[in-house]
């Protein structure tokens, strides 16, 4: 348990305790409605060490890494980086493949830029 917390905090590299619980990250998040746990919850759950719950949640893959929360966080906590750290912990642990090329045709959206698909593979595929 504490090893995961240390690993997450280490790859995150900033201080979650700086958070003043203003919720600006969640206020600014474009994926908010898609998420079970929202950006501000990520920060407080990582601080508490409740990381396994987050790792099991789909929410870690709902973050677009758009960095709106990083840009606007008044405390320099940069929630997207917290989420990224949890995501990495999950990916490295399981070695699971969350995206296989066969899934793509069903999900394809005309407006979706190709770059996004490439990015998605880098993020979600092993």
């Amino acid at each position, binding site marked *: 348990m504490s090893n995961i917390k240390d690993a997450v905090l280490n790859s995150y590299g900033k201080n979650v305790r700086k958070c003043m619980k203003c919720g*600006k990250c969640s206020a600014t998040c474009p994926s*908010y*409605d898609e998420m079970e746990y*929202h950006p*501000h919850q990520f920060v407080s759950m990582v601080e508490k060490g409740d990381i396994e719950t987050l790792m099991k949640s789909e929410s870690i893959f709902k973050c677009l890494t758009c960095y709106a929360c990083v840009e606007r966080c*008044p*405390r320099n906590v940069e929630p997207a980086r917290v989420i990224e750290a949890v995501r990495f912990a999950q990916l490295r642990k399981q070695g699971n493949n969350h995206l296989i090329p066969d899934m793509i045709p069903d999900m394809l959206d005309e407006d979706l830029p190709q770059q996004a698909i490439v990015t998605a593979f880098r993020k979600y595929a092993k």
Partner: protein
Amino acid sequence: MQRIGVFVCHCGTNIAATVDVKAVAETLKNESGVVFSTDYQYMCSESGQNIIKDAIKEHKLTGVVVCSCSPRMHEATFRKAVASVGLNPYMLEVANLREQCSWIHKDIATATEKAVILGRAAIAKVHLNAPLTAGESPVVKRALVIGGGIAGIQTALDIADAGFDVDIIEKEPTIGGKMAQIDKTFPTLDCAACILTPKMVEAAQNEKIHIHSFSEVADVKGFVGNFTVTIKKKARFVDETKCTGCGLCTEKCPMKKVPNEFNMNLDNRTAVYIPFAQAVPKVARIDPNYCLMLKNGKCGVCSKVCSVGAIDYKQQDKFIEERYGAIVVATGFNPIKLDKYDEFAYSLSPDVVTSLELERLMNAAGPNGGTLLRPSDKTHPHTIVFVQCVGSRCDDSKGKPYCSKICCMYTAKHAMLIREKYPDTEVYVFYIDVRTPGKNFDEFYRRAVEEYGVHYVKGMVGKVTPRTDGKLAVQASDLLSNEQLHIDADMVVLAAAIEPDKTARPLATMLTTQMDTNDFFTEAHPKLRPVESATAGIFLSGACQGPKDIPETVAQASAAAAKAIGLLCKNSITCNPCVAHSDELMCNGCSSCEKVCPYGAITYIDKEFRMPDRTTAIRRVASVNPAVCQGCGACTVACPSGAMDLNGFSNSQIMAEVDAICK
């Protein structure tokens, strides 16, 4: 040979927990010249001081070393104690075993070793101490208040009340400051102008108070009790002594499209203008950036209509010099600029306003005559969103790290006033914390929630998007119900952080006072000397020292006045005898010291000297005015020939200390 006594203080456990005080006293007993050495729990207590006094008498001490806290804390206490039994107070040295030893070290052995070394250095210095006698310098019975807001006005009124002359320097054309722009005041909701303008008039009519409006401090020289200040009276192109404030020129001025800064640029004024109806002094000013006559030499309407001939297009900046015994700084605050906060669309939509702009929008003398209308289309807003902590409590490069203190309360006030006047308006306040310490403050905020139905939402606004239909799409989080809110607002009000006025930093340099990293003036002691700066004779009043509301500002203003009066009451003050002096035989007349002296205490004189061959020669040598010298020591470092030396901190004493430390 000196007979030295060493007194080691435990400071409760402050020193004794980390330093073996008994070992220190024991070890220092063996130093040359030490005839008595002891330790005690609290040297600064009466019984502690008695130990020192008794030892001086009993052992015929000629020098005393107290190993205790910082000399800034208790040097004066111990000097007084030794003086009371006839020892010259400057024969005492303090070795700082607390701030510079016990508080910063953890290991007892090393801390004790360092304590012994610090004590040894102080003993080495005392060996070379010489008795010094403090002189006296007279106090000029006049005070200067820099800044004419509510803080400056209150301070000036109180000083004048005590019978002293006081000058107010205000950089704007009128006194009144930020309070004059505020509509109502919390927590009583009385009108700001109704309680401020009588004070402004009182200041103007008081014969002890002299207002220099539209003026700035250009230079400060001198020291406590005897400051010489150069005041720059900026050209207002209107003769203050002639103008009656009738306002005819402002009516006739053809240049009517000048942004009105008093109304936060929400409407326009003329190029010749009086800031507001109750301005003090009620004297017009011509804005040279817009006046057609001053820009192109074509117009002159104001000059033609002025019946008293007050318009003077040729007026120049004027510099006057005045002398003061005390200076009170009351330079106040400003809201920060919000151009870096793109997410709130402040620069995109006129309907996103700061709280100070809202004050003007709601004020009877404001751009809409007191009716709250959206700046964009002049319609009544039905949904208003307030955002707290915009730029306050930030750890980023955009904002300020501190809480601006006043925003929670003025937002509750705004919300309440809007709900009272326009009950069909929904008001949302997004807060991180609601901070309401103060008499009747929390009750006031609760009234906004309970009686006026203001929606307080715990969370922050993430973004504001102006839509084509004129609404503002507000996206925010409600942390308590864990949902993201989308509100279609008509207006958004941002509680911008407040920061010290920009003039404060250069002023602090002129006054040689300290500031913190946020440019607030630093008080001499955060708890016990909150209205004095560390520079003698300079006092602090109002928001220049930290964010403050009106009641606190007025309280501090009166406190600063009391401190200034305490100084002005004295006919003379005791000078610091630790001043520089030059060895005329060694001085080569190079002027290095004169150039570095920040107080102008050094002058050069031509003096006749007898030469070895019995002739006489005239040489140019440095001479220090001890009343002006503050003992900073800059000259002793600059002097290439070693002629300049500082009483009490002589070069030989400092070298003796270094030798003792390196032994």
